[in-house]
């Protein structure tokens, strides 16, 4: 029932072969012949994608011709008989033959930009001839409120991520994988350089690994990844204050615990590049009454290429200690997993004051099976047996070890969004980029691994409190001086948004009131050994 005053082509708009055929049937679907531009077909124009460039050039010629004599044009239009506007190429040609002067020489025409007429968004190479100057909008001329729309796409992404995670939890992998596709499409429209787009990208990757490669395809492992991990760790250390805070706070507590002792022994559960220790060595050197004999036992994964990286680091630290007149001895313990370390390897002397330092290592001991004797209990037991003056524990303040995948996922999304957001403050490259990769690996492990492959089993401070108390440790409060110095550290790091908080003797560092990392100190409840001066 064509009610509109369209004289012709009410239904024939898409077929385009004859000029006027009205029918009351619904329009045929756009012809899917070889490379007809689908979007233009829906708009009623039949043209092959491969012809777009040519037609564009002819439109330009027409335009130029028109520019020369506009009045003639509309007059001629009234008189001429035109056919089949749907067949764009033919129509433009017919107009050209009616109106356009033949070109005087080809140099008058600017070659079109080099693109293949695909229907993707606007990224064109600039035209070849650059002798034309034109006013160009500068990018900082932004009146725009596009961040508002970013937000909205970001919110959409988050909702889709949650839905996808829920599908994964339910086992509906086909829906999950189609959601992955949708999200990747949506990602293309969101800024992935920063903000929710970047975080979402990592989570989408992790989810898709879980869906398509199955759990246990863990990217985090020992062995060959050790070297890479160290580099990433180092850059994470540089790019944001979390590790610095961890080292700083732990060192302060250790320093205080070693007060009055002449033989001290630090056991570091993860030496890495030994970043934590120069500061402690310096501080001990400056201690009134002189430095103690310092022993450092550094635990780390074995080097894959035959190098003894632990020893190399030990040597460097020894050199530093020598330069500040601190008697120093180093021992490296190579172990792929912390639970493989036996206390006898540490060669602790009963007369020394021992500090056990665990920066983000204890959570790795929380095995998949909470009932059986998981490594954490074993290790906590022998730590206790060492009777340390202090056990410094720094952990991610997050609940990434919940039994429900969806809960873990949600928590991780929140946690890492916050962390990425804080990372925006870092302007130094490649530190920032590598720090992001470091975080990305964590995300990958939390989201796409299970069983023993999932080592990033972060638990919140409250849980660690219960666990450590249950294992026979009592908390040592971190004092206001530690707090003050942590705050000063942040001022030096000079990015607004970080916040240090004291909570029941522990310190947390967070971003805008969301704590991300928690530092605490403990002592074994069993009788504290008397601090006797040791010989030699």
């Amino acid at each position: 029932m064509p009610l509109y005053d369209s004289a012709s082509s009410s239904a024939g708009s898409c077929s385009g072969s004859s000029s006027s055929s009205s029918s009351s049937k619904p329009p045929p679907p756009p012809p899917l012949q070889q490379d007809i531009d689908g979007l233009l077909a829906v708009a009623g124009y039949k043209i092959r994608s491969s012809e777009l460039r040519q037609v564009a050039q002819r439109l330009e010629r027409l335009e130029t011709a028109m520019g020369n004599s506009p009045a003639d044009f509309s007059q001629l239009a009234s008189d001429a008989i035109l056919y089949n506007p749907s067949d764009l190429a033919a129509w433009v040609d017919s107009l050209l033959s009616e109106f356009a002067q033949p070109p005087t020489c080809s140099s008058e025409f600017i070659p079109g930009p080099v693109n293949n007429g695909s229907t993707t968004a606007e990224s064109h190479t600039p035209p070849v001839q650059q002798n034309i100057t034109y006013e160009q909008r500068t990018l900082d001329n932004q009146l725009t409120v596009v961040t508002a729309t970013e937000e909205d796409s970001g919110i959409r992404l988050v909702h889709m991520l949650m839905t996808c995670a829920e599908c994964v939890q339910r086992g509906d992998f086909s829906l999950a994988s189609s959601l992955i596709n949708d999200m990747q499409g949506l990602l293309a429209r969101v800024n992935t350089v920063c903000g929710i787009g970047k975080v979402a990208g990592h989570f989408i990757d992790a989810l898709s690994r879980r869906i398509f490669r199955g759990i246990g395809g863990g990217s985090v492992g020992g062995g060959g990844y050790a070297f890479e991990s160290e580099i990433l760790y180092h850059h994470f250390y540089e790019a944001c204050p979390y590790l610095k805070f961890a080292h700083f706070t732990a060192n302060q507590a250790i320093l205080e615990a070693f007060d009055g002792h002449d033989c001290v022994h630090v056991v570091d559960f993860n030496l890495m590049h030994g970043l934590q220790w120069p500061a402690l060595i310096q501080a001990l050197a400056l201690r009134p009454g002189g430095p103690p004999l310092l022993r450092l036992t550094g635990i780390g994964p074995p080097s894959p290429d035959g190098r003894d990286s632990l020893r190399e680091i030990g040597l460097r630290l020894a050199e530093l200690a020598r330069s500040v007149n601190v008697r120093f001895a180093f021992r490296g313990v190579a172990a792929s997993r912390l639970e493989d370390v036996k206390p006898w390897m540490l060669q602790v002397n009963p007369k020394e004051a021992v500090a056990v330092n665990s920066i983000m290592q204890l959570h790795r001991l929380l095995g998949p099976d909470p009932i059986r004797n998981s490594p954490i209990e074993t290790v906590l037991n022998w730590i206790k047996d060492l009777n340390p003056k202090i056990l410094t524990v720094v952990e991610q303040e997050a609940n990434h070890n919940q039994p429900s995948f969806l809960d873990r996922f949600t928590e991780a999304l929140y946690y890492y969004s916050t962390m990425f957001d804080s990372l925006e403050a870092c302007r130094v490259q490649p530190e920032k980029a590598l720090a992001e990769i470091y975080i990305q690996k964590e995300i990958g492990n939390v989201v796409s691994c299970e069983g023993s492959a999932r080592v990033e089993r972060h638990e919140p401070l409250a849980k660690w409190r219960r666990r450590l108390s249950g294992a026979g440790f009592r908390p040592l409060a971190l004092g206001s001086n530690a707090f003050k110095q942590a705050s000063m550290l942040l001022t030096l790091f000079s990015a607004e948004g970080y916040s240090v908080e004291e909570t029941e003797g522990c310190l947390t560092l967070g971003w805008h009131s969301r704590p991300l990392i928690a530092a605490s100190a403990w002592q074994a409840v069993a009788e504290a050994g008397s601090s006797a001066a040791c010989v030699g």
Partner: protein
Amino acid sequence: MARSNEVNLNECKMVVPLNTWVLISNFKLAYNLLRRPDGTFNRHLAEFLDRKVPANANPVDGVFSFDVLIDRGTSLLCRIYRPATAEEPQPNVAELEKPVAAEVVPVIIFFHGGSFAHSSANSAIYDTLCRRLVGLCKAVVVSVNYRRAPENRYPCAYDDGWTALKWVNSRPWLQSQKDSKVHIYLAGDSSGGNIAHHVALRAIDSGIDVLGNILLNPMFGGQERTESEQRLDGKYFVTLRDRDWYWRAYLPEGEDRDHHACNPFGPNGRSLEGINFPKSLVVVAGFDLIQDWQLAYVDGLKKAGQEVKLLYMEQATIGFYLLPNNNHFHTVMDEISKFVGVLVHEAHVPVAFVISVLLSRVRVIERNNEIREAFCFLFETTE
């Protein structure tokens, strides 16, 4: 002269996909054929050239449409688009006006663009856009086939819009179940945006509630030549000369562009202070030469204390919303669906936290390497 043409052609080719360029350039070309210097319009050729599609009561991609004559006196037609429900794959005639099923169904009264002279409700590009809005907003869309200039000058288009508004408001089958009222939004692009504004204005004090206005590149102007008009004249498909032609064709004879239809916040405009005007979503394309007028419109609303959200799409030209092949399109569609209030909450995640993450910003002060060394030794040893 030829030189500056070349410049202009190159510029706009760089900012839109090629098929968009071809589409809009083709429109430009065709429209040039139709506008006569003496102010008359080649209507027959216009209708011949306009690509149209019929209504389709068979759902296509979940949307079906049908045409309704809502005013015999002016032959005013509307095309109604509805979402198809699962159980009625082929609604028969009796079911076309079946009551809307949901708690809240937005009804978007859409006014197509065309600078008051071109296009119709059954133009292919607008049929596509309206169908899209149905899916996007879970809405019923009523596209008004208003009378066009120069044959029908001001206020015909507004009269038709007002007629459509009254008609929509009085359809029982368009009432949302929640409150038995029709939840009406006015939307339009180019001249349609202008019409939406003026219809909303007329609705004030009428007892008809308009919940929101969606203005895509709305057509406004004024006597003054603004900076954007001068800077962008002829650069991105549109010239000042053609804008002037269309206003001369629409406005009453003898009126200039400070007529309130063209310039609602100009010298002859009406103050909207203290008026119960609907909230507005205004989309402005950064390469639209009339953006200064559009921004002044937004400003005018703000100064009158009215709720308005501006979406300034920096690198967009006119017509960017016609083809879904650019970021601006998707951004705007998302915003429209949000504006009409249909973001579906899947309720796992408190959106607040996402907002807080997204909104937190950091001011960075330069790091000083010396300071970085110093902190290593910054220990207070216990006394």
